[in-house]
């Protein structure tokens, strides 16, 4: 961890404890001693398919955080079934890769994921779940997502400054985020 990253993460943690945002189980947050990894509980919002269900999000921060996005995935026994969440916990969400900006935070990522859950109309993993889970890298940041949104043409997404060693999986996702 760089000094800047540690300083920022300490501030984020203090901020989260102070604000205690709805839908996040801040008191149960587990952080590694160097703050490199966090596990945060999130609760599905009332009136949605996931109402009251508790899931765990795992954040892993690199030394270049917040300039590079954190690696975020669901872990634990219950992975939410959702058209953008694979059964191994990997999440297809553009702010976790090419739409990340340093102005985002752990809190805004959690809230985006919760809102993604809330807008779901069916509890189902993505159609390519089986093949993705069998072949993907354990690290979701190694996946190169292609977002086919309205706002851009087909465009490969990659993060210019991250560690790019290792195998890269290529999956095409239909996404309107």
């Amino acid at each position, binding site marked *: 961890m*760089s*000094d*800047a*990253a540690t300083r*920022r993460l300490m*501030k984020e943690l203090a*901020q989260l404890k102070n604000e205690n945002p709805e839908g996040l189980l801040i008191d149960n947050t587990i952080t590694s001693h160097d703050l490199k990894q966090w596990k945060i509980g999130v609760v599905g919002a009332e009136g949605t398919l996931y109402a009251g269900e508790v899931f765990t999000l795992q954040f892993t921060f690199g030394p*270049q955080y*917040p*300039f*590079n996005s954190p690696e975020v995935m669901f872990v634990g026994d219950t992975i939410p079934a959702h058209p953008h969440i694979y059964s191994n916990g990997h999440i297809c969400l553009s702010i976790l890769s*090419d*739409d*990340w*900006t*340093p*102005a*985002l*935070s752990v809190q*805004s990522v959690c809230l985006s994921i919760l809102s993604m859950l809330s807008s779901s109309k069916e509890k189902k993993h993505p159609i390519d779940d089986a093949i993705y889970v069998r072949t993907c890298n354990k690290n979701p940041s190694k996946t*190169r997502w*292609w977002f086919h949104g*309205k*706002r*851009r*043409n*087909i*465009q*490969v997404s*990659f993060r*210019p*400054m991250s560690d*790019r*060693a290792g195998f*890269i999986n*290529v999956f095409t996702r239909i996404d309107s985020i």
Partner: protein
Amino acid sequence: MANDSDENKPTSTAAMTEDDLLLQDQQLKQIEDEQKASPLVGDKLPFYALAGLYDPVSAITFFTKANELAAIYSDIRFIRGDGNCFYRAVLVGIVEILMKDRERLIKFIDTGREWMAKLVKLGFPDWTCSDFCEFFIEFLEKIRDGKYTEAEVFQNLNDDGTANYLLMYFRLITSGFLKDNCEEYAPFIAEGMTLQQYCETEIEAMWKEADHLSIMALVRATGIRLRIQYMDRSEAPNGGYQHDLPDEADNVTPDITLLYRPGHYDLIYRNLVAQ
């Protein structure tokens, strides 16, 4: 030579195989390693160091231009070509001015506070943006209070974590300026993207190069007078083309001069004796 142009980035993936992607990744890794071999902000060097980068035979156009420019400019500070070079060159240029001009420094600190309030009002994520602004203001306050020597200031500007925090302030006010003047600037955004999206993906994200719109916005947001001295292969008057921003500031001595070579900006200094 540093290069952070878009040329190496793919625009279409339609025909790419996994092997292509792996190869591309290796190439990117190599470019990244080359970038990291040079400091974020180089020492001030005599301007003829630039001509030394070009072979007088195979790169005659650039070599000749570099020599022509050496009659006008005395020094150059190379900036790392990592996609942040425009913002970083402006950051360094401004900090250099502020270290010498106390009145301007105090004013710049005040403007920093105003921007912090304005960004929140414009709907930027509250505390993360304030965090970047506060970091920048504290840095300037330490200069004001004499807590940093000049050498320490440059140490900070060359430390990844610190320097990127400072740089983020400039990205945020660039974006803030455009959002604040949305009606004026929205027509310049390419179709299929809103100004908001443009700001988030092209300006607020690190390692994304500045284009004309963001350059204009940062100049206006900071109130600096900027000269861009172009050096490319085009036929140009002796010494090449230059462009002053804001536009109405033509023929006024600029605060900061940047040298533009295709895809990259460095900081250059006018030869005061020749003036």
